[in-house]
């Protein structure tokens, strides 16, 4: 029977001041393998070795589906269902995976803590945050009364929540997303854990909030010497924050080492390409995405990246690639590590058209949207003009009103004041009441391709709809031809017409949504965060598709995104929105080289950047 008692002396409830003693050990993960289903299925995570050191942040990067979250949860013995977990995860010499469930529960929230992506889902909406913070302190530390109160205030101060005494009595919904994540962090830190696992903790948050949380985390790690595993798909963020980096692909760690060394000379092609793929503020050009899709599980008898790798050669297939050591403490699974130094895919600029000096296609003049009962307008006197073929980017944080502008142009909501004109037509009616040609001319692509394609329709039915609505009586064969052609245009096989949306990946679905918009032959394309739900490897290809087709057809684009670097790649002109107002409007180049407004400068400064070798 294993010892389930916390080996450390229980905290003296009367002495909680100056409470963060440096923990001594970290977490050593050795040969961690996770399988769903029987041994015939490829493992989801295969033979992962990671070492979490006290006072250090280990960044675990990789695209969605590569097994990062599964690794993070499995490492602390968190079971999700039917999976088989093998390997060891040593916490101060004790294998967490060998403990019985009761002993594991005694560790969680106590010596090992976990913070999930969405604090708004992780916090109980029906309980004040104070009660939620008190629970682990009561359970693991036996605190109560004044000592408990003092400790809770101390923790809220630690995570920089203003007015802690009042904040403790509030419910989660009374906090902003960033503050909710701070509360979750305070709960995770309350028992002075030795190990903290953060699973995409800032992914849903604005870039300025993300920067503040990262800074807070760094200072906490420096002060408390806690060992942190930080899981994120955002390599730029990890490059700035983590002491060492581990890159995961198809369930395996393909490269790991100290952050500066990995950034200076990536030894695995996937790392190299991933680093190049992140859109950069300094450079509006994009590295083309990686062709193909990652395998569903670990590939054990080839290099798993070989089918998509520009450097692959015959030797890469036929045997598992062992991890090799390189100078500077880097390990990578690649035969061709030496060949990576030069070459590789180089960045290209997205296709553009010369903007004719003509009358504007779209005029938005002093437009306002004020929902009844809201304290301030969602959109406050926004004005801009757009010419045929021009691309305008609108950036801003969540709640800035950028998506509402698109909704008004597309006729999903009616503005409460102001004036919009498209060509010679006033745009004051809702879409249902607009003439059909106007609905055809203005097309909208949504953020989440999971939601914008009806799950009960085949891709063919989805793509047929604009043809039926906007192109009159076409013969069936002509419609079919156009559907196939449009699929090929967005670089999908024509055979996809028979599939259901659920059978496509996120990037593929977004391409279908784009194909649907272009099948209407629009003059104006409205893009609402179209790449936010996509991985960086597909993001570039989706942007490329939009740019190419819109340039060919001379379609004007309004591109809304919270991601400044993405907007930079595609937009000719950029509007920065805040609290419903346009605070700055400039040429794309001018905005990044010479931002006029302090808010724009803050936004740009908050974007994590890193230098490529």
């Amino acid at each position, binding site marked *: 029977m294993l010892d389930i008692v916390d080996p450390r002396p229980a905290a003296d409830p009367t002495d909680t001041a100056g409470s963060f003693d440096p923990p001594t050990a970290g977490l050593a993960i050795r040969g961690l393998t996770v399988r769903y289903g029987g041994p015939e299925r490829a493992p989801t995570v295969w033979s992962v070795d990671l070492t979490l050191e006290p006072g250090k942040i280990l960044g675990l990067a*990789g*695209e*969605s*589906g*590569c*097994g*990062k*979250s*599964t690794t993070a949860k499995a490492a602390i013995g968190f079971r999700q269902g039917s999976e088989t977990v093998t390997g060891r995860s040593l916490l101060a010499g004790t294998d967490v995976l060998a403990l019985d469930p009761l002993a594991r529960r005694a560790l969680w929230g106590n010596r090992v803590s976990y913070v999930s*992506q*969405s604090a708004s889902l992780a916090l109980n909406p029906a309980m004040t945050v104070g009660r939620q913070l008190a629970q682990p302190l009561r359970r693991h530390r036996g605190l109560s009364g004044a000592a408990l109160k003092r400790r809770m205030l101390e923790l809220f101060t630690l995570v920089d929540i203003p007015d802690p005494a009042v904040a403790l009595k509030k419910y989660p919904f009374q906090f902003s*997303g960033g503050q909710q994540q701070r509360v979750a962090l305070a709960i995770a830190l309350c028992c002075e854990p030795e190990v903290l696992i953060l*699973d*995409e903790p800032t*992914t*849903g948050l604005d870039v300025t909030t993300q920067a503040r949380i990262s800074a807070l985390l760094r200072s906490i790690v420096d002060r408390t010497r806690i060992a942190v595993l930080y899981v994120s*798909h955002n390599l730029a963020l990890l490059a700035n924050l983590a002491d060492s980096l581990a890159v995961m692909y198809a369930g395996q760690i393909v490269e790991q080492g100290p952050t500066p060394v990995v950034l200076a000379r990536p030894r695995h092609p996937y790392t190299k390409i991933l680093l190049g793929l992140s859109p950069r503020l300094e450079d509006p050009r994009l590295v083309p995405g990686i062709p193909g*899709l*990652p395998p*569903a599980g670990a590939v054990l008898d080839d290099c798993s990246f070989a089918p998509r790798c520009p450097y692959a050669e015959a030797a890469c297939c036929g045997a598992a690639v062992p991890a090799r050591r390189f100078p500077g403490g880097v390990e990578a699974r690649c035969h061709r590590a030496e060949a990576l130094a030069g070459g590789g895919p180089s960045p290209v600029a997205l296709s553009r058209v010369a903007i004719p000096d003509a009358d504007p296609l779209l005029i938005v003049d002093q437009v306002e949207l004020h929902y009844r009962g809201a304290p301030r307008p969602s959109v406050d006197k926004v004005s801009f003009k757009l010419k045929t073929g021009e691309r305008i980017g609108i950036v801003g944080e*969540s709640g800035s009103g950028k998506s509402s502008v698109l909704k008004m142009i597309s*006729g*999903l909501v009616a503005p409460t004041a102001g004036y919009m004109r498209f060509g010679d037509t006033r745009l004051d009616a809702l*879409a*249902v009441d*607009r003439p*059909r040609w*106007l*609905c*055809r001319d*203005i*097309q*909208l692509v*949504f*953020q*989440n391709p*999971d*939601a*914008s*394609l*009806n*799950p*009960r*329709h085949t891709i063919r039915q989805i793509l047929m*709809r*604009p043809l039926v*609505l906007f192109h009159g009586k076409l013969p069936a064969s002509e419609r079919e031809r156009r559907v196939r052609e449009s699929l090929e245009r967005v670089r999908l096989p024509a055979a996809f017409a028979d*599939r*259901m949306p659920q*059978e*496509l*990946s*996120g990037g593929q679905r977004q391409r279908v949504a784009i194909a*649907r918009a272009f099948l*209407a032959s629009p003059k104006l394309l409205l893009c609402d965060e179209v790449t*936010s*739900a*996509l*991985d960086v490897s597909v993001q570039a290809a989706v942007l490329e598709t939009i740019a190419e087709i819109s340039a060919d057809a001379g379609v004007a684009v309004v591109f809304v995104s*919270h991601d400044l670097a993405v907007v930079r790649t595609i937009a000719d002109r950029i509007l920065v929105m805040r609290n419903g107002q346009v605070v700055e409007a400039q040429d794309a180049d001018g905005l990044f080289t010479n931002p006029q407004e302090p808010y724009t400068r803050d936004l740009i400064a908050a974007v994590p950047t890193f230098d490529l070798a």
Partner: protein
Amino acid sequence: MSLVLAERPIADRVPMWRLVLAARDGRVGVALTGASLLLILVGPMLAPFDPTAVNLAPSNQPPSMVHLLGTDHLGRDVFSRFLWGGQSILMIPLMAVVLTYLTAGLLSLVAAYKGGWFDLVVSRFFELLMSLPALLKILILVAAFGPSTPVLVAAIALTNAPGASRVIRGAVLGETQADYVQAAQARGEAALSVVTREILPNILGPVSVDFALRITWGIIALSTLSFLGLGVQPPQADWGLMIQEARSSLQKAPLVAIVPAIAIASLSIGLNLTADAVVRQFTGRTGAASGHGA
């Protein structure tokens, strides 16, 4: 909020009925429902006697080779009455629920999609209807118009209306916010087209489950009414009525009440279990569709 969506491998298209049959409750439910339906549909063809033929001489006989389940207090063959007795108990609730969906269901569908004052009036009306106890509504109707089949259908339909209206309204409101519905609206699609093409196929799942459960409820309500003497009227053969008639001679001939009771139970339990298994498939599917980090 931005989501990181998994690049999921292509899912196998498994037909719904297979998933339902894969679960134990699904198999039991389908078996019970199937057996009951078979009995109801084929039974009358196999009945050895006229279910309403009165023959006082051999009344309250125990089971024999001639009368497999014996005879009742009027000397009618219990087995024949049993084989005939399922039709009314299935058809009346079925017609009632279809009527509910054609009236209250359609009305709520339009109201929920249109919104505004029309939706307000329709939902308030159904809430008002809901505030009256179900049995009271039925009793008033039956007392006023007599216990004929159309009245029973209307009464059961009326008691189902508020609940069905809520289910439809909730499902439609959820769908109206979906991006693909907004995409259709932005395309300038007519309201009818948005409702039939975009919304209906997506609410069919929860609605069909609600449909099955309402039939179950209708079966129990009708049996209750027949037992109270307000439902199906003698001399018609009906499971609910048989239980009521057998009450006086329960000690002498218990089978006369027990056999139809078991039949009612297996039909409603079977429908319930099937609906449960189906609804789990729908919720399981939508749950799996939500995105999460790697």
